[in-house]
């Protein structure tokens, strides 16, 4: 199992899922209508390191963070 957490304004509780790669995470999150407005604008971190390749392999206990558009300052 891996955990997916949603940061900032997405306001959604973390979820757990079985996923071997980031592509599996993408497929499962696309099934959630509450995320439709977010996914194309969000970046992704794996265990707090930014990743941008769907073939990224995942292992048990990994934490995937979904980061919506930012505006610091």
């Amino acid at each position, binding site marked *: 199992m891996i955990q997916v957490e949603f940061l*900032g304004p997405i306001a959604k509780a973390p979820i757990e899922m079985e996923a071997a790669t980031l592509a599996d995470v993408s497929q499962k999150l696309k099934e959630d209508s509450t995320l439709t407005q977010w996914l194309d*604008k969000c*970046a992704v971190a794996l265990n707090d390191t930014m990743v941008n390749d769907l073939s990224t392999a995942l292992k048990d206990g990994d934490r995937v963070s979904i980061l919506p*558009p*930012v505006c610091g*300052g």
Partner: protein
Amino acid sequence: MELYNSPLDTKEIFGRWLDEHAESNYGAYIPFVGTIRAEDGIEALSFDIYEPVLQKWFDDWQKRAKAIGAVVKMAHSIGDVPVHTSSYVSAVFSPKRRVALELIDEFVEDFKANAPIWKYDVKDGERIYAADRSTPMDGAGVLS
């Protein structure tokens, strides 16, 4: 990198950074202050920060600055920051001004684009995500 659950005490922070490097032989010290403007009826801005990724982003910038003999600094607020106070300060120290002027520009612009910080307007006590002023981070859309 410094994070505060309050508006920033800009004079204390800039003074302390100046003291830290009083004898480091840097010829240029360029501070940047972000102040909350009163506009669109807001009382304050409010911020969420994801510290683990912000720390890595900042550590990468420290390495990049060090490679050209410079130092970058930053401080940011978490939570509500009233209008006319400061939520963000940064600074660059370097031996020569040209390096510092260019670095503060790149550092602040990349901060706006890629620091994992989310901004909300505060109106009538309600937090409203500043969606139209926010920017997708590098690599956004990978899951879509």
